[in-house]
């Protein structure tokens, strides 16, 4: 029972780890460049959860100072992740732009076909 409680009690961590591993798996296992970017985004998103869930304090309220409350949630992770989201969007945009250019130049975005054409890379 103890073990079961530990597992269920940390359900947020399990979701984080599941997303993390599946994102990374997609990046490695898929040859399609757009799918790779999707995997990369899932991987990055899992990290947002990793930061956000410890920021919530059980029984805590929004972090606005008020004499009626003493326990507040931690706002800092949200601020950090806002920055990380912007970085993630930037990366995804640049990645997709590169995929478009690769499609124009090579006529394909499948890695198998690209490697078949080019042995140098």
């Amino acid at each position, binding site marked *: 029972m103890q073990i079961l409680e530990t597992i269920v009690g940390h359900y947020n961590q399990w979701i984080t780890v599941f997303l*993390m591993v599946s994102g*990374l798996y997609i*990046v490695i296992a898929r040859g399609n*460049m757009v799918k*790779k970017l999707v995997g*990369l985004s899932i*991987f*990055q998103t899992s*990290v947002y959860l*990793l*930061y956000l869930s*410890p920021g919530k304090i059980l029984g805590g309220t929004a972090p606005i100072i008020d004499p009626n409350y003493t326990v507040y949630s931690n706002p800092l*992770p949200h601020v*950090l992740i806002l*920055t*990380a989201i912007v*970085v993630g969007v*930037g*990366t995804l945009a*640049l*990645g997709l732009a*590169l*995929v478009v*250019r*690769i499609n124009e*130049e*090579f006529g394909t975005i499948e890695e198998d076909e*690209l490697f078949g054409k*080019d042995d*140098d*890379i």
Partner: protein
Amino acid sequence: MMTQLPALQVVIPLLASLFCAFMKRGTVAWALSLVASWAVLVVSILILQQVLESGPISYAMGGWEPPFGIEYYVDKLNAFVLLLVSGVGAIIMPFAKRSVGTEIHSTRQPYFYTMYLLCLCGLLGIAITGDAFNIFVFLEVSSLATYAMVAMGKDKRALLAAFQYLIIGTIGATFYVIGTGLLYTVTGSLNLVDIAGQLDSVNNTRALVTSLAFLTVGISLKLALFPLHVWLPNAYAYAPSFATVFLAATATKVAIYLLIRFFFSVFGAGLVFQSLPVSEILLILSVVAMFGASIVAIFQEDIKRMLAYSSVAQIGYITLGIALANSNGLSGGIVHIFNHAIMKAAFFLALGAVFYRIGSVHIDHLAGIGRRMPITMMGFVIAGMSIVGVPGTVGFISKWYLAAGAFENGQWWLVFAIMISSLLAVIYVGRVVEVAWFRDPSGATLEARDPPPAMLLPILIFCAASIYFGIDTTLTAGIASQAAELLLGGLR
């Protein structure tokens, strides 16, 4: 003014990059980048002076006191890295005008300079900031700019190289954020100095070790430690010549600085090297890099790619110095950051000049190039001697310190490994020298001649530096050993 120096270090290139993006003509953007690069160099020299005279600088960004606000923290180690990055940036700028002018379409040149300045800003930011999350932001600023610069290469395979780098680089950066997040959950702080202070009282060593593992792997991806280096040869080979010079000399060096900072200043050598097998793992990977990458370099046809593999091998020497974790070894590692930067800059500048003249750096096209472009190829040879470690050049100084560090740990076999891997460098440099000087010129090479003075001067400056700092080591090895003492002094 003097108190705002740490902020200026980052703000100048950031603002200049913004203006560059709105320029119509490449020449104007170049002039702006030139001014910004030199201004940044002046700032970093002033910072180094201040640090050497009156100890570490702590600067509260926006007036928010650390550990709550972002702190810029400069000690001897990162003042040295700042000087290196901005120095390389400033010296290579005169080279950029013609090199970028021929390799990049005129409408895109302002954007190229924008990317260059953003990359410079990111690298300086990583080196100067004392906040773990701020490091991530600067890491991504420099990385995104780098991907864009690589993708601007003339060869269409540059796009594939950039995409590959983007995927691997982003995984690396995300690993870094995971590590930082775990550190934050156990200490509740993002300030590196503050984290280091709180780690003594942390009992949850499992989270700490996990965090160390993520940070190490993430940063190692960025610095191209041996099995994680796959992005580097393609990125260096297909990027525009100027971008290759800048990246080879600075980008991986800043990542190495970050690794040193986390190992010694944050986690402490006690945790990293005494209770975990980091030293052994790093030692093995370094030695494999020194041999494996050098051997692969020997068989490359494209000289840029050959030097890229050589970079992987040279990074092996630096991480070897870190793995030795004693005063001489770490000094050797830190001084090799500087020395490798100047010799690789000289190498890639020489190749950039060759590419400017004959439009190729394939070994078959280089026959007799030494007779047609004697000064340029002389620069290549001096850099080559330096990478081999001939006494009187900077390469010798680094290897001397590393060997002394290996002896200090009683690992005499490492001294032989360092010597034998240097001989591999003789082979791959020798191959180019043989083709360039002892064969008759043909084809495009017949018409080639040394490039204009603006391109030649940076090559000569780096060659002169690689001989000067091989003889007078007070600035480089002096600061490096002081920094090493400081890092090891905090042994907990």
